[in-house]
């Protein structure tokens, strides 16, 4: 069942064609699908500078290879990340978080002796978040900087954490000057039910912690 459009939300992908080493762009797919079943029109744009970034209502700054990060380093430096992270909600992952840390927007990175390559959980307010960590840094699994969620848990972290997905969707909608539906449309309820079921199975496989379902009104 299609509902009438509740407005347009723009999702921005920061150098998305280069920063998808671990499937982080899947977060935009998850967010786009979620917003669409909630009744919004969604546009995804490529972002490579500050002016494009602040035109989006949610930004994804994904993890890239060493070669990819080196190739965009100069252009990233030209962007005003203090302005961007204050103006637009977003999700930064892996090497993007390390890059933000290197620009002193986050606490600086220290290297651990041992690389961690496994599923881990992190805490963001009252949310527990599950994802795959592959890093030798001491950066926390998940933290906030301004409106940005900064996580070392890569891949489709929004898709497998429906409560975090909902938080991201609400932030995007708010940034677009719109309102999230007070009563979830049928399509959204059905989609959330599926996401909850699948995510619960993933959590059961990868952690001893209990999965908390997303409950919509």
């Amino acid at each position, binding site marked *: 069942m299609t509902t009438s459009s509740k407005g347009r939300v723009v999702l921005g992908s920061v150098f998305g064609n280069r920063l998808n*080493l671990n499937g*982080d*762009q899947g977060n935009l797919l998850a967010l786009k699908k979620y917003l669409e079943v909630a009744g919004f029109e969604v546009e995804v744009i490529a972002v490579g500078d500050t002016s494009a970034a602040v035109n989006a209502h949610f930004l994804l700054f994904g993890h890239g290879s060493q*070669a990819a990060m080196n190739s965009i380093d100069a252009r990233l430096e030209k962007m005003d990340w203090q302005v961007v992270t204050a103006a637009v909600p977003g999700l930064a992952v892996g090497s993007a978080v390390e890059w933000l840390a290197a620009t002193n927007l986050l606490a600086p990175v220290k290297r651990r002796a041992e690389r961690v390559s496994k599923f881990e959980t992190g805490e963001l307010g009252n949310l527990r978040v599950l994802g*795959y960590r592959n890093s030798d840094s001491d950066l926390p699994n998940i933290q906030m900087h301004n409106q940005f969620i900064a996580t070392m848990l890569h891949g489709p972290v929004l898709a*497998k954490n429906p409560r975090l997905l909902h938080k991201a969707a609400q932030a995007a909608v708010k940034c677009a000057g719109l309102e999230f539906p007070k009563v979830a449309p049928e399509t959204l309820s059905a989609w959330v039910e599926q996401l909850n079921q699948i995510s619960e199975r993933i959590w059961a496989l990868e952690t001893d912690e209990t999965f908390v379902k997303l409950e919509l009104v």
Partner: protein
Amino acid sequence: MRYLPAIVVGRLARFGVRLIRPGGGSALPGLVLSKIAPGILKQTFSRFTDGLVIITGSAGKSTTTKMVVAIARAHGAEVFTNPSTANIKQGFYSSILERSNLFGRVKGTVAILEMDEGHAAEIVRDLTPRIVTVMNVVEDQLDRFIDPALVRDKLALVAQAATEHLIMNADDQNLLQIAASRPRALQHWFGVADKTQVASLGYAPTYLPPLEVPNCTSTVLELKNRKVRIASHGKMVDFELPSRGLHFALDAAAALETAKQLLGGRFDVKLAQETLASLPPVFARGEIVTINGVEVEFTLVQNPISTQLNIDNLPSGLERVLFAIGRDVHDPSWLWTVEPKNLQTVDVVTGFNAAEAELWLRHHGFNPSLATDDLALAFEYWMALPEPTNSMRTVVFSADAMRRIRRMLGFTSPDEVQR
């Protein structure tokens, strides 16, 4: 005589493993042998009169190795090789256990080995390969390798070990970087003629100004369905590939170049062509098996690019698809780098990572009717679904899911391929 006790202990370990798990368990006996007789590897691989050939890289090494072995054998060479399921260190020890006499002696005039790109650098420290063939660098197993640049660094160490011939893929910029530090006289190249096709092969981008592509001595000129034409040292080789896709055509070009350098003046291009034309697919790469009288195609996917390429090369409009991602995929995040556009439907999702695969598929608009980590239940359910009308039942699986499904179906030997 020195290795007699170690071989006996290793074989007892193998016997024990196979009693418990028929068709499985090549790793443990190899591990046992590597602990009690580590020197046997170096001794064995230094005894082949025609030397040691190593085929490595991210993707295509199994197929290429099988092709080179077949061509060499057709030319009368007595070849020692390893199964593709045993391409890491303990796998080589397992292969020695399998093929040696009680004193650790292995028959053969040449060893042609497939080596895992993560282990090859460590293994070649003790070996002096005559020929090294490097296929490519792709974004693969990042939970192990972290970054493609680190894979390239490891492969550079393997390339340095080649004493006579270094054979590489001219269309992979990572390998051109490796070549810069190696003597030109050692280098031989394979590639595709139509450079517009290179992007579809998914080599890890270097994001650097492109290095000049060297001239190839074995080049894929044309590919229509499975019919391929390769120019190798000025002669045309035409045959039908055992499996679909440009990447398999490139494997054949790599194999022809490797065989040419291995056999030298003995290399007969017509014989090589006949050999390649009669090859069965490497197991589970387009392999067709009969299960309860029904033909089923097996397609193995191992990393983002092989998943993308193999899905892209499946016939469009498949009506019955089972998708299985097993325990070997430690971080299933990479599924989200793959666009499953060429799939019309997925009926069943299974394997250890069934939930991860289902999440990815549902975001791409698929609605599997069953998603379960129980492979037996999934397979039985799927085989009971109505027969497809215009296509063959197709299983797309990762290596772990493949081994479990093959074992479940009674295919106990990984090299036992029907065609």
